[in-house]
């Protein structure tokens, strides 16, 4: 049996190591919303010859169009983002892009979202997130009729949510990674995964409590963790293998979507053993201390 409960401070340290920078980034930089939410245009251009970001930028400046960002996505591919522009201007831009430089540039991807639609999509996505969260919370409430377990599971859930948001706030600031509808999809999937992983651990703890094993609560949790951690890790490993393959090989369009899922899965696995259970242990200690002092 591994004495997990001895190192509670270590788990707090590991979590805060990820959470604190993430939170700072979230507060100061915020997330970087994609054209899905803000409205605007995203162009992915492929150049036949090698070129540089300023050269690409000049092409747009000549048209009198302000570029919000240019990123190199792979060897000779560039992703250019524009603020919402009038359709006429965009049409002019497209024809000049394909015409003037003849066969040098091909437009791989061209997405334009109107500002009103973006706002609407943002509202809908928030609504979906809320409905999913409420559904998951009701399930937690149903699965753990005991408030102690329920709240610990929810704290672990919030932990995972903050980790994913924090990491993407950092990535948004330093790597210009954007948050789109798929990101929201990823974090909702993550949440459901986090809850199910926690349920497996807590089920085992409750099973042992019910069996009336004669050992302190700390030790009981340690035993439950020791028994379930192998399964939990193995399971996450298989998911992580699939996701890592997608992040590395899946191409630019799903890369960050898969990455959000990956971060969420890792955090979700970690949090059931090292956030939810420690909170349960701390809660138990606090309850016993209170009893003693009365």
């Amino acid at each position, binding site marked *: 049996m591994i004495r997990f409960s001895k190192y509670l401070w270590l788990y707090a340290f590991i979590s805060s190591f990820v959470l604190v920078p993430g939170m700072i980034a979230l507060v100061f930089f915020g997330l970087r919303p994609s054209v899905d939410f803000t409205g605007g245009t995203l162009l*992915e251009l*492929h150049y036949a010859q090698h070129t540089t970001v300023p050269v690409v930028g000049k092409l747009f400046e000549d048209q009198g169009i302000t570029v919000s960002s240019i990123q190199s996505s792979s060897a000779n591919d560039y992703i250019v983002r524009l603020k919402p522009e009038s*359709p006429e201007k965009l*049409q002019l831009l497209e*024809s000049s892009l394909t015409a003037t430089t003849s066969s040098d540039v091909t*437009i*791989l*991807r*061209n*997405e*334009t*979202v*109107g500002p*009103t*639609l973006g706002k*609407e*999509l943002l509202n*809908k*996505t928030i*609504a*979906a997130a809320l*409905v*999913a969260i409420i*559904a*998951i919370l009701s*399930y937690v409430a149903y*699965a753990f009729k005991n408030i102690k377990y329920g709240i610990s599971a929810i704290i672990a859930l919030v932990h995972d949510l903050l980790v994913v948001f924090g990491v993407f706030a950092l990535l948004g600031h330093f790597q210009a990674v954007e948050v789109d*509808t*798929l990101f*929201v*999809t990823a974090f*909702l*999937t993550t*949440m*459901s*995964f986090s*809850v*199910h*992983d926690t*349920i*497996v651990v807590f*089920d085992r703890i409750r099973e042992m409590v019910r069996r009336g094993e004669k050992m302190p609560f700390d030790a009981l949790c340690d035993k439950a963790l020791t028994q379930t951690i192998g*399964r939990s890790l*193995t*399971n996450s*490993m*298989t*998911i992580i*293998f*699939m*996701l890592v*393959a*997608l992040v590395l*090989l899946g*191409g630019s*369009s*799903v890369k960050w*979507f*898969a990455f959000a*899922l990956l971060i969420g899965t890792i955090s979700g696995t970690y949090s059931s053993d090292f956030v939810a259970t420690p909170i349960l242990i701390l809660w138990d200690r606090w309850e016993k201390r209170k009893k003693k002092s009365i």
Partner: protein
Amino acid sequence: MFKTPRRIFFFLLLLTVVLVAFDLPENYHLKTTVGPFSIDRIVNPLSIHIRVLNFDIRKDLKTRLGLDLSGGTHLVLDADMKDVATGDRIGALDSVAKVIERRVNLFGVSEPIVQTARTADSYRIIVELPGVTDVNAAVSLIGQTAKLEFREFKDYKDSTESAFIIPTLDSTIATGLTGKELKRAQVQFSTQTGEPEVSLEFSNDGATQFAQITRRLVGKPLAIFLDELPITWPRVNTEIADGRAVITGSFSQENAKTLALQLNAGALPVAVKVVEKRTVGATLGQESVRQSLQAGFIGLAIVAVFMIAKYGWLGCLAVSALFLYGLLNFALYRWIPVTLTLPGVAGFLLSIGMAVDSNILIFERFKEEKRLGKPWRVAMELGFGKAWDSIRDANFTTIITCLVLFNPGNWSVLPSSGLVRGFAITLFIGVVTSLFTGIIVTRTFIRVLYKEKEKK
């Protein structure tokens, strides 16, 4: 039938054969020589065509790729309804969609999709044009307001042959009456014959003009053009003074509806504006297909190696169950059919990772029970029994989240974006089928193919 594991096992083998037939590649040219036999034929997936009583069941099992994989353009058009009376708006939206569908078809796009999407105060049309990436021409064509015109033949000879002449722009001249003067068109049923017919109602101005025209054209056809193409050319029977006309003929209800929609497109002019446009080049689409396939195979290979390394022969059986799982999913995508998008592929790959989970839960339970000293056969059955609760709980939240994301009720407060749905549907199918393969299939495989030495 399913009394013994052996029978289920053979049933599963049979299922595999059927699924393979479902999953065969499309238009794959097979040309090899095996010994004395040389094979040279085009392989296609099974297509089903059964007639049961009066039901005609026809299924072509083809993979449907979303625009992000096949390349193409996705357009969302917003219809401006401020000049249209509240009661007429839904009809007007249908009209606009009909007109756009007509234009898109003229454009020669294969399998275009035009659908309407209405929420509380927005009227939208979603257009999907597979394979079309140079959309400027298409967009300006689609974005035009429909132009309805009433025209008459330049020189009309009254003969039976001329009844079959199709009017063109050249053979006709404008009467001056246009869609502007038409108030609305409607499908109604003749009070005499009960057959469907289309009624026209003109504005006051229009009624005067229409009266003049019909007086002039009694016995001759009056051609109606939409977007410079004729849609119908009914013969004028009498002068119509009150601006209320009826077009009769042997319409089917469907034809009458289409005609009314087309006429309304001119009567209820609705300006449309592109609010979303997504174009993916065919090369990027193909590249994405290639990359996600590659990622899938490599991921799958690592998972397989991992499972076999960790659980040995048991792992091997789990991997074969996973193989069946892949076939089953792919067959379902073709059967339902599910339009595969890039996030959809990601959802499927994620579900593979999750599908192994039920096996891992069972195997770990199995090991535990064995450690407690139970014989392996008992331990295995106990493992399946006890793990079931956890498996059910574990998948429940994922299924709920998928349902919220898929938004099956099309609720307007929730997103109905194709990409999000694509992910939710494949993950959902994946999780549900994993319950079948993870438990029934693996269990049968183990019962039939797994043996362990009894410890003494």
